[in-house]
Structure formats: C-alpha cells, structure tokens
C-alpha cells in the first residue's frame, strides 16, 4: 500500500527517475518482464519436448535487465549482453519471433542465421553486439566500444552484462581498470544470481559485494536489489548519465537469484536445497513488480489478465512462426568465413 507516510516522504524529497516514470512506461516494463518470463518458460518446454538442442534461461533476472534497458536509448546506445539477457534484449526491441528463430537455429535467425548458439544475442539494428561463449570476454570488447564512442565524439554509452562468477577472470579486472583510467562511457552490470553453475558465490569471491571491487580500479561501485525493477532503473539512470556526460564508467551489481537450473544441461537439485529456491521464488521480480503496480492501482485483475493474454499471444505466434520457418541450406555452413571481397 502507498501509505500517507510514503506519500509525504515522496513530496519532500526530489523525485527519483523511477518516480517520474509514467503509468504507461511502468506498464511497459511489466509487459516486457512478463513477456521474457513466458517466452523463457516456453523455451524450456520446447527443450523438454526435444524440439531444440539447448536453452539457457534468464528467469529471475527480468527486473535487473528491464530496469537497465529502460535507462538506455535503444538503437543509440551499445549493448554487449550475455546469455541470460533475454529480458534485456526484448526490452530493447528484439521480438519473440527473432529469439525463437535463434532457438531453433533457423535461416532467418537475425543473430546468426543458425550458426551461433541460442541466447548469444546479437542484433546490429539495435546495436546489440553478439557475444561468444567464453565468459566475460564481452567486458574488454565493451571497453573498446566505449573507446570508439569517445574517439568519435559520440554520446552513446555502452552497457555490458555478465554473471558474478565470471568476474574471477582477468578480463573483468583488466577491462575495468582500462575503462576507469580513460573515463570511458561504459556501464558494467553484474547480474549476481549467487551461483556459477553449482558453485555458490562464496567459492567465487571473498568479498561480500562484487561492487566492492570497483574501489580497486577507481570507479563507482553500486549494489542494488536486482529483483526491484525500479531500484535498478534508478541506479542505471544515474550510471548512464555519468557515462554520457564524461564522468566515466560505473560497476553496478544487481543482486538476484536464478530460480531454475543453469541451463538445459544442468540439474540444480544436486547442489542446492528446494527450500532455498522456494525462498527466492517468493521474492520473484515479476511478483514484486505486480505488487508495485497493484499498490499504485495500475494492475487490477482484469488488467493483469489482459496483459497475460497479449503476452501469450506473442509467445504462441513466435513459437509457431519459428517452428515453421525454413532451416538454413547445408551449404550455408561454408560461409561467411571472411568479409566479402571489395
């Protein structure tokens, strides 16, 4: 409930960016989060039915990703995502059809024409740069993209995302150091879901917060509740403004949880309790977004049912479309290894 006390507090303090979001934008955030969730659920189901070879999920990360996407200028700013960023790329404007085409590795898959694994999102029209499977390699590249923006005198910022486990690699540390020295316009978003496959966070680092590592490189490090879409949005708006106006990079740590196995090749029952998973499911980012909207009177039952209906229609359409789409021709395997001759 929005109590009188909170209303009074809001009246006294300057409004945060999230407080200035229109009802329409808030509902758009919710729509994208739910769309990502339902599309993701469908992908798991398709994998279980043996209709695709692999799926890796972004479930639980929707608030962190949508909060981040809404702070950017899609198509203007650069994004170098990682494999969990399904909600991020949907919020930026990729479509469920496109993502389903990639899942089935169809010829029309806009990321790679069936060459790359699914969830290795790439979409040049939206300045989404395709990543590769070795983890955190997007960080040095994002630094280079930001360098190019600065070099050309453009005001685009670069967002790159990664899991906390992969920050044990040198690439992370080397990239942050560089970006900070040169005050590059880049935001490093760590989606800390507390596991790297089976290894809990305490086996990956001895610091309580990943963001604490920013100190070592002289850039701001911010911890945010990654299951609160508006909290992430606020933090991201500030980081984006800093980057855009010459203030340099920010490390944002969105604390969240992965409520499903690591990928379709994993069974998470071998390394964590069902109670733990249930605890986090009760704090699901979509539930929390629904509560937030309901408190503001924006999500009555009828409205919610309507959103769900529209989301499911998109998911069904994408599934049918992609399944019916043609496979690449076998000889497509042979190109394009090199750039076309000029």
């Amino acid at each position: 409930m929005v109590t009188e006390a909170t209303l009074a507090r809001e009246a006294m303090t300057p409004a945060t960016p999230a407080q200035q979001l229109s009802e329409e934008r808030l509902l758009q955030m919710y729509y994208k989060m739910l769309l990502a969730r339902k599309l993701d659920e469908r992908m798991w189901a398709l994998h279980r039915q043996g209709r695709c070879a692999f799926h890796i999920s972004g479930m639980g990360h929707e608030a962190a990703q949508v909060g981040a996407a809404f702070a950017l200028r899609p198509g203007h700013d650069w994004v170098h995502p990682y494999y969990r960023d399904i909600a991020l790329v949907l919020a930026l404007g990729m479509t469920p059809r496109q993502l389903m085409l990639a899942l089935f590795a169809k010829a029309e898959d806009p990321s790679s024409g069936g060459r790359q694994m699914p969830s290795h999102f790439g979409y040049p029209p939206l300045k989404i740069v395709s990543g590769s499977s070795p983890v955190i390699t997007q960080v040095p590249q994002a630094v280079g993209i930001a360098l190019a923006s600065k070099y050309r005198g453009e005001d685009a910022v670069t967002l790159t995302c990664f899991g906390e486990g992969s920050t044990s690699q040198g690439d992370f540390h080397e990239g942050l150091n560089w970006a900070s020295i040169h005050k590059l316009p880049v935001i490093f978003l760590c989606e800390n879901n507390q596991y790297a496959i089976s290894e809990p966070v305490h086996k990956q680092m001895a610091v309580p917060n990943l963001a604490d590592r920013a100190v070592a490189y002289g850039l701001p490090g911010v911890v945010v509740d990654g299951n609160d879409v508006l909290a992430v949005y606020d933090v991201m708006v500030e980081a984006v403004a800093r980057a855009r106006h010459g203030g340099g990079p920010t490390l944002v740590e969105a604390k969240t949880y992965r409520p499903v196995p690591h990928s379709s090749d994993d069974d998470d029952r071998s390394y964590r309790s069902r109670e733990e998973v249930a605890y986090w499911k009760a704090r699901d980012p979509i539930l929390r977004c629904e509560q937030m909207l309901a408190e503001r009177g924006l999500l009555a039952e009828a409205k919610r049912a309507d959103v769900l209906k529209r989301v499911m229609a998109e998911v069904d359409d994408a599934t049918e479309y992609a399944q019916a789409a043609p496979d690449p021709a076998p000889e497509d395997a042979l190109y394009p290894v090199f750039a076309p001759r000029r």
Partner: protein
Amino acid sequence: MATMTFREAISQALREEMYRDERVFIMGEEVGKWGGTYAVTRGFLDEFGEKRVRDTPIAESVIVGAAAGAAIVGLRPVAELMTINFAFLAMDQIVNHVAKLHYMFNGQITVPIVIRVVGGGGRQLGATHSQSPEVVFAHFPGLKVVAPGTPADAKGLLKAAIRDDDPVFFVEHATLYSVRGEVPEDDDYLVPIGVSDVKRQGKDVTIVSYSKMLQVALEAANRLAEEGIEAEVIDLRTLRPLDTRAIVESVQKTNRLVVVEEGWRAYGVGAEVASRVTELAFDHLDAPVRRVAQAEVPLPYNRRLEQMALPQVADVIRAVKDVMYIK
C-alpha cells in the same frame, strides 16, 4: 577385464592414482559438488574431501598456473578445464611456462601436471564450445598431448600421464564418454605415452586416426569390408611425441594412406603424418595421401550445418576409394 564406459574408465584411472599417490589432487571448475561437467568426478568430493577435489573460481589461467606452481614444488595436480576451448584462456601458462620450464631451467624443474580437457564437436554447442584444436597444443615442444579413442586406452593413458614427470595435455572427446569397451582393472595397467596402436588389421589401405575419429574410421573400415576392401586402422593415441613406426610399417604393406581428424585440415595432424610418411616411406606410396577433416569454418550450431562441416563415415569411405582409384 571389465566392460565400462569411457567416462568410467577415466574416473577409475583418477581414483586409482589418487589412492596410490597422496600428491595427486584434482582442481577445476565444477569438479566437486557437481562432479565435473561430464560427471567424471561424481562422488569424488565425498570420497576424497575438499583438500583433494577442489572447485575453483572461473579462471582457467590460474587453474593451470596454480597447478604448475604446485607441481614445481612436488605435488602432482590434475587440472580440469571444462572444455579445450577454454584452454585458450590459459594459453600463456601452457605455452610460455608449462611447456618450457623444464628446458629453460636446464632440467632442474619438472612440471608433472595433467591438464584434462574435453574436446570435439557434434553436440550442437556452437563454434566456441566445439573445437578440436589439440594439434595447436601439439605444436609446442615440452608438452605431451594425448587423445585416447577407447575406454581401455583412456584409462591406461591417463594413469601413465599422472605418473609422467612431464606436463601432459589430455584430450577427452565429449561424444566418447558413453562409448563402452573392455578395460583392464589391474591397478598398474598403463598404456605408454607416445606409442600408436593398430586397432584393425588390413592389407589394402591404411587409415590413421585418433580420439573420436578413430571410431569413425573403424566404422568406415567395417563398411568397406562389406565391399571387400580391408583397411588397416591405426590409432595415434598420442600426438606428441608422435609415433610413426606403425604407420610406416603399414604403408609399406598397403601403399595407401588416409588420415582422419576432426579438426581443420590446414596445418593439421593429417599434414604432419603425410609429411612424415613422404620422408620415411615415399617409395611405398601408390597414391597421394588423402586427408579427411572438418570444413574450414567455425563449427556452426544448426544440426544440419554442423554435420555438414564435420567429417563423416561417408567422407572416410570416399577418401579410401580415392586413394584406391575406385570410382
């Protein structure tokens, strides 16, 4: 002898060597609680404890570098990298250090580590999860490179690798783990590193291969036999040091050679073997050596494309017929 999978054979080798020698321990991503990406070390954490089965952060360079450090001062680490593709993140440690320390310090240092990696494609894991670049690692003097193709060899070679005083890069093809075979259960069963093996006798043509492609070569040989062509199939087992004795003897008999590898043709195992055979048995060749290898592209994800790019049984049969001048 017992019948077991390639996976069980590797597990058994590790377990036996850990019981035999206190200095042997395992470290890598996901080797503990998860039991390894391919379940090779399942149960090891309970059996040996955290001291000897160590889950590491995701940092391949440190996994190899720390293994090297521990080895230099007398331990015998088995470092596991989730896939051979991630060995590229440890390349400096492997190439500039592990492979060279013994030589650079005039033999005063040994680096007795085993780097276990999972290699190969064919499981729809995309270009950066599916490579077969063992030949790259075989390029460097000072590093032994082993790539077994059967459960028995996997066990005997891994035990030999752990007991070896040199660093050994040990390649396990992901699609071999469920292959079954007879495996000796003797605690001291070893297969010597650097010795190839004739896996099938034949008089008409020699097929040289290793790892997963050994199975492909054997399948091709079976089908060729139905057409009356008897292929001799030689398993290299070790890429460095490379044993050419069996190949030369075989070519002296068959006069025809096909080399089958899963990696790319350019600068590959086929190129090396063909070159050595022309040096050692040129007069015995009745046809140019043929190489069967992966198409020169990063391996695509889509199943049809992936299969198109990988060497298949039919490609081996075609190459054999080519060197026999059969249409």
